[in-house]
Structures are given as structure tokens and as C-alpha cells.
């Protein structure tokens, strides 16, 4: 009887192998790397420029000064970059499913999601990272934060948690694409749009119904706003309990575990190009 030559390979090694291949493929198009990155920075930066102009005239937004607002913006943007860099392929989910291109991620002995995410990549989210980290570094000294080691660790946990919250929403909705074929408009034009537009402001400026919706229906507040309040010692003005704000970074891992399971659960509804 014939024996096969292949042997099990650890999942993390396969991830790194495919990640490496994706980046090498992308770097073949060096074209205008710099302009693409600048474009990415400006795309996210224009929102902050607006905030800056408003503060320059009025001194605050919702009682927050420029340092505090920039800090909030930086946390949100860095979290955004932290998930879009490894997950930028989710953008192509609908197309992959509709065209049956997903087949190729189901015939190799490696995780389907690992293969899908690393089939190719996109450098533009790196612009978000540069912008986010830049704003964060500048704001760290301007904002009234006591930088203890605990605070630094809490900030890192916040960024990771916030990234996972946004990522989970997108991944979960992508899971629905196996059934519905198309979720792009919902994911990008609606949810991502709200996150990008509203994520940089203190929620106190919104009417209370919206504040509730952006906390508990679409957990935007958990991405950056609640933990930023903790670091800025502003939990007193929140309409939720301070402990909830403290625990905000924990929501990300929980949601992500659920979204990951959901995505794989929905995979059985994949129809390939069948009718």
C-alpha cells in the first residue's frame, strides 16, 4: 500500500510559513509604497485633524482637551491597525465565497482561516499602524496619565482587547457570508464606518440612547473609550459602573473566541460554486 510523504505540522508554523509567503508576494509590488502609506495615514488622520481644528477654536470636545482626545484617537486607531494588519483579507470574503474561490483553503492540511488570511496581504493597514502609534506616542505625554508599569500593561491590554472586539464583529459577520454570500455593505459601509467615525469621540457628547447603543449593542465603547476613561481618571463621568470600564479589555478575547467558533461553524454552509 502506498504511503504519503506528508506529516502533521504544528498550526503556528503553518501560519508563519503562509504569512511569510503572503508578504513576499506583496513586496513584489513595491511601486509607491511610501505614498500608499501616507495615504493610509491621512485617511485616518483627517478625522483627527477635524478634532484638532475644533479644539483650536473651542478648547475642548465634550470636556476633553486635545491631549485626551488625541490619546483616545490613538488607542482606537492603533487597535484598528492591530487587527486589520493580520485580518485585511476579510475584505475579500464575499468575493471568495461567491466565486467558489474558497475551495482552495479546504484541500490542504492546514487551518482554513489560516490559509484564507494569509493567501495574500495588503500594506495599507501599516499606514494605520504608523498613524496610530505616532498619535499615541505624541498624546502619551500631552494627556494627563500617570505612566506606571501597570498603566503601560493596561494600555497594551486595551489595544489588544480593542483590536479583538472590532475583529470579532467583522469575523462573525464574515461567517454569515457562507450562508448569505454578501455581507460587505453591512460590515464595511455600516459597522466599520461607525467605528471609524464615532470611535474617536467621548461618548458623553451623544444622546443617551446612542450612548447605550454604542456600548451594549455595538460595543464601540469597549474598543477605546471605556479603558481610556480608566487611564485618564475620568470614570466618574461614565454612565456605566467603573468596574465595567476597568474590565473592558476582557471583552475582546471573549468575543473573539465566540466569533472564531461561529465562523468555523458557519463553514459547513459553504456551497462552493454549487447551485
Amino acid at each position: 500500500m502506498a504511503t504519503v510523504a506528508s506529516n502533521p505540522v504544528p498550526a503556528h508554523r503553518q501560519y508563519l510559513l503562509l504569512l511569510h509567503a503572503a508578504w513576499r508576494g506583496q513586496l513584489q509590488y513595491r511601486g509607491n509604497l511610501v505614498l500608499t502609506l501616507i495615504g493610509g495615514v491621512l485617511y485616518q488622520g483627517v478625522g483627527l485633524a477635524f478634532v484638532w481644528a475644533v479644539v483650536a477654536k473651542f478648547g475642548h470636545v465634550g470636556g476633553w482637551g486635545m491631549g485626551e482626545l488625541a490619546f483616545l484617537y490613538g488607542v482606537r486607531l492603533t487597535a484598528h491597525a492591530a487587527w486589520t494588519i493580520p485580518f485585511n483579507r476579510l475584505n475579500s470574503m464575499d468575493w471568495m465565497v461567491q466565486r467558489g474561490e474558497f475551495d482552495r483553503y479546504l484541500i490542504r492540511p492546514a487551518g482554513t482561516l489560516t490559509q484564507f488570511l494569509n493567501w495574500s496581504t495588503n500594506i495599507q493597514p501599516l499606514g494605520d499602524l504608523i498613524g496610530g502609534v505616532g498619535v499615541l506616542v505624541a498624546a502619551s505625554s500631552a494627556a494627563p496619565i500617570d505612566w506606571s508599569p501597570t498603566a503601560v500593561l493596561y494600555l497594551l491590554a486595551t489595544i489588544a482587547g480593542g483590536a479583538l472586539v472590532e475583529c470579532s464583529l467583522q469575523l462573525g459577520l464574515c461567517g454569515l457570508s457562507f450562508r448569505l454570500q454578501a455581507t460587505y455593505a453591512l460590515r464595511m459601509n455600516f459597522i466599520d464606518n461607525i467605528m471609524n467615525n464615532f470611535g474617536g469621540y467621548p461618548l458623553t457628547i451623544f444622546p443617551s440612547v446612542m450612548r447605550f447603543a454604542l456600548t451594549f449593542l455595538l460595543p464601540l465603547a469597549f474598543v477605546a473609550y471605556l479603558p481610556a476613561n480608566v487611564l485618564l481618571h475620568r470614570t466618574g463621568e461614565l454612565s456605566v459602573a467603573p468596574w465595567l470600564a476597568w474590565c473592558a479589555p476582557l471583552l475582546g478575547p471573549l468575543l473573539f473566541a465566540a466569533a472564531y467558533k461561529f465562523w468555523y461553524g458557519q463553514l459547513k454552509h459553504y456551497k462552493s460554486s454549487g447551485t
Partner: protein
Amino acid sequence: MPTPKPIIQVEGLAKEFRRPKRIEGPFGGIRTLFTRQYVSKLAVDGIDFTVDEGELIGYLGPNGAGKSTTIKILTGILQPTQGSVEVAGVVPWKERERNARNIGVVFGQRTQLWWDLPLRDSLELIGKLYGVERDRHRANIERFTELLGLAAFIDTPVRQLSLGQRMRGDLAAAMLPEPRILYLDEPTIGLDVVAKERIRAFIATLNKDEGTTVILTTHDLDDVEKLCRRIVLIDGGKVLYDGSVEKLKARYAPRRRLVVQLAEGARWRGVAMPGVEEAPPEEDAEPGTVALLFDPETAASAEVIAAVLADHQVTDLSIVEPELEGVVHRIYAAREAVA
């Protein structure tokens, strides 16, 4: 000789595609989410077959017959609605990755190579991804490079390869981990004659030398005629025929054709034998040729030839076997007439 063991067993396989009725217009996607109307279609409707280790079978059927769906279930891409499947002892959709280590898959219309990287990088990556021991993998790359003639373009990015080159690359990629079973979906589609021949020769070699079991899905019946001893023919999600190519012809196109070239000036006087009849003259037939149709079951070829030669002066004689193409077309046509 020991009886070969079945490597693929399919029983009562059915797959129904059910999708929510798509609602058009604004927010169609969201409205579709809440609809309860479904459109369903039975793509595979109770299929049974087994494949022995080392077989090379052609899996045929018209468009929409359910061939791709079957292959996708066997490879672990789709889950069936009903029935059982075992491939080398593994239920594909339950242990997808374990199954993937036993199989190689090539889709004619869709490459699995890394588009922006040189072919060599894809081939090397596959060795690492499948955990193939290094020296063994290197030796395999060398062997396939020679067998498939990859040397000329192995350092070219895949996106710059011609269709034929890309297909050879895909074949090499699928076979590098030495899978026990190779699924080929339209491997020669869109290729020129030379490229087709090269790929057919490679498949035949694999099957003969390595004992790789090959399941070939194709519209090109030349592929099947040159490669397969057995075919499984499906239509409407059901098995129409499962057996050897010869038996299929005997069943659906029993009559052979004897073409007689008469000597100059000779006249055709006819042959009086039961089961032999004259074929209607073909338009492009040369002057002086006559074609007879006969069933070798009732009239042996030798007797028909003897009867012709007894009465005529003949310069040439040939017996034409029915072509698979014609046979299969006839079967499809007959089914359509019934439906």
C-alpha cells in the same frame, strides 16, 4: 494476485443545495437574512460507487450533472446532506485535514499556486506546509521538474506563466506530498494538443509507477479514452453507468463500422448476411467506398470480411470502433428525450 482493497467508498450520497431566496434591491443582503423562502436543488441524488487502490477512473457527466459536487464532497470541501463516504479510511468532512494529507487536487480553472511568487517557491512551500522530509521533497521536486519539463519556467512568477505551464506546475504541486489519491477536475481545459499529451503522459506514469489512484473529471473524452479503463457516468445526480469503456460502447453503441474501398471499376453487389446492413453514404466519402454496420455479437468480424471479399475486388478494408464521444452524446441525448 491479492484482490485490491477499495480506497474510496461512497454509499447513498446525496447533496441538496438550499439557499435563501435572494431578495434584490436596497439592503437585499439584510432582508435575505430574515427571509424564510428557500430555493433548493438536489445536485447529487443517491450515488454509490467504490474505487480500488490504483484505479484510474473517469468521472463523467454533462454540466450540472453533479460531478463537481461529488468531487467536492470527496475532497472535504462540501458536506453531504445524506450518505456515507470513506476515503482511505477517513470521512473527508469530519477530518478534513487528515483527509487532505491523503489527497492531491487540481482544478483546471483555478490555480492553487502562489500567484506572485516564482513556481519554485510554491513547490518548496508545499513541502514545508505538508511536513515532507527535506531530502525526500527535494528529490521529488527534481523528479517532477524532469517529468513535467518545469525547468524552463520554474523561476518565473506564476502570474506570468501560460495556462499549460501553470497546469504543469499545479500538477507537480498536487503530487509533491505523494498523495494516495489524485483528483483532477478538467486538467486539460483550454490547453493545446502538445500540452494535453504531456499531461496525459504524466498522469498515466503516476498511476502505473506510483500506484496513485486517479479520479478524472473532464469534458474531453479524448482524455478518458487515452487514460481510463473504467468510467462512472452520472446525470441528474444519479449514476447512469459504471464499468469499463469497452462495455459501455458494447451496450450503447454495439455496432461497428466496416469501411470497404473497392478496386477501380469494381461494382458493389451487396452482402447478404443477417445482422449486417449498409450504412447511408457519407457526404465526404471517397468514390468507391462502402460502409457496413454490424454487431459483432451476431456477425463475427472475420465472417463479414470474408463475405465481402468473396464477391468483390477490394483495395482496402478497415473496421472503425465507435468513439466514446459519440457514445456519450447518444446517452445524454436519449436521457434528454426521456426527460
